[in-house]
């Protein structure tokens, strides 16, 4: 049991444990906070995978934007004076069975393949440079990059148009 394996097990436990809390908590605000904790765990896993830039992006975007947006939505759709309703819908048993069957099937198929045990090549910090160049290179990913920026613009305009106050 090396240090890396120990850190991986702690991060995985944090990630999966808070994910379970997200999907079972009745209080939505608590669920959003557990979601933030889960995102931190995933960012730690990115650091273990030598993708430090992605770990920073994960914290910035998922925790700093998406989770904050979710908390805003929870606050704006507060249902205070309601009778206590169940927090699962009518098909939760099917959902649990399906999720478990999916997990079992995918693990059974995936774990039969002899995946590599070690990383073969070290990754240097210039992978960030390569990522930036790949996103700007006409031979590589500049087209999806531009399409993604158009998508974000459309999402911005669209969500303002949908959620603004109508007089």
């Amino acid at each position, binding site marked *: 049991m090396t240090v890396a394996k120990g850190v991986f097990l702690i991060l*995985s436990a944090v990630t999966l444990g808070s994910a379970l809390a997200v999907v079972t908590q009745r209080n939505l605000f608590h669920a959003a906070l557990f979601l933030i904790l889960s995102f931190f765990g995933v960012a730690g896993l990115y650091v273990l995978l*030598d*993708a430090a830039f992605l770990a920073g992006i994960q914290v910035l975007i998922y925790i700093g934007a*998406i989770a904050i947006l979710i908390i805003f939505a929870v606050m704006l759709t507060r249902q205070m004076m309601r009778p206590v309703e169940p927090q699962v819908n009518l098909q939760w048993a099917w959902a*649990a069975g399906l999720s478990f069957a999916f997990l079992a099937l995918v693990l059974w198929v995936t774990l039969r393949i002899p995946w590599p*045990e070690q*990383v073969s090549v070290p990754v240097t910090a210039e992978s960030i440079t390569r990522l930036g160049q*790949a996103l700007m290179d006409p031979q590589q990913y500049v087209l999806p990059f531009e399409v993604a920026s158009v998508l974000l613009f459309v999402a911005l305009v669209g969500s303002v148009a949908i959620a603004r106050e109508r007089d």
Partner: protein
Amino acid sequence: MIPLSWYLIVATALFAIGLYGALSRRNAIAILMGIELMLNAVNINLVAFWRYLTPHRITGQAFAIFVFAVAAAEAAVGLALIISVYRNRDTVDVEKINLLKW
């Protein structure tokens, strides 16, 4: 070092937890939280495969960046829709938002 299969197990488990959350919850925002968990699981898979199988190329990380962008856009639009539904129907309970159900 950490075997690749450990990362795949964590990603699959996270995806299954997100799937359960997206399928079984009543509140629309809780469903969206399940969807975000699934997207995170996919990203872990992408980055793990990049690191172990093709670290000489940058495709895995680029794909993960695009998944980040799409997840952010979809969360924004989804939450705007939920807020709009709340303003019109005064509920975000998906059992009650059933005008289009058979």
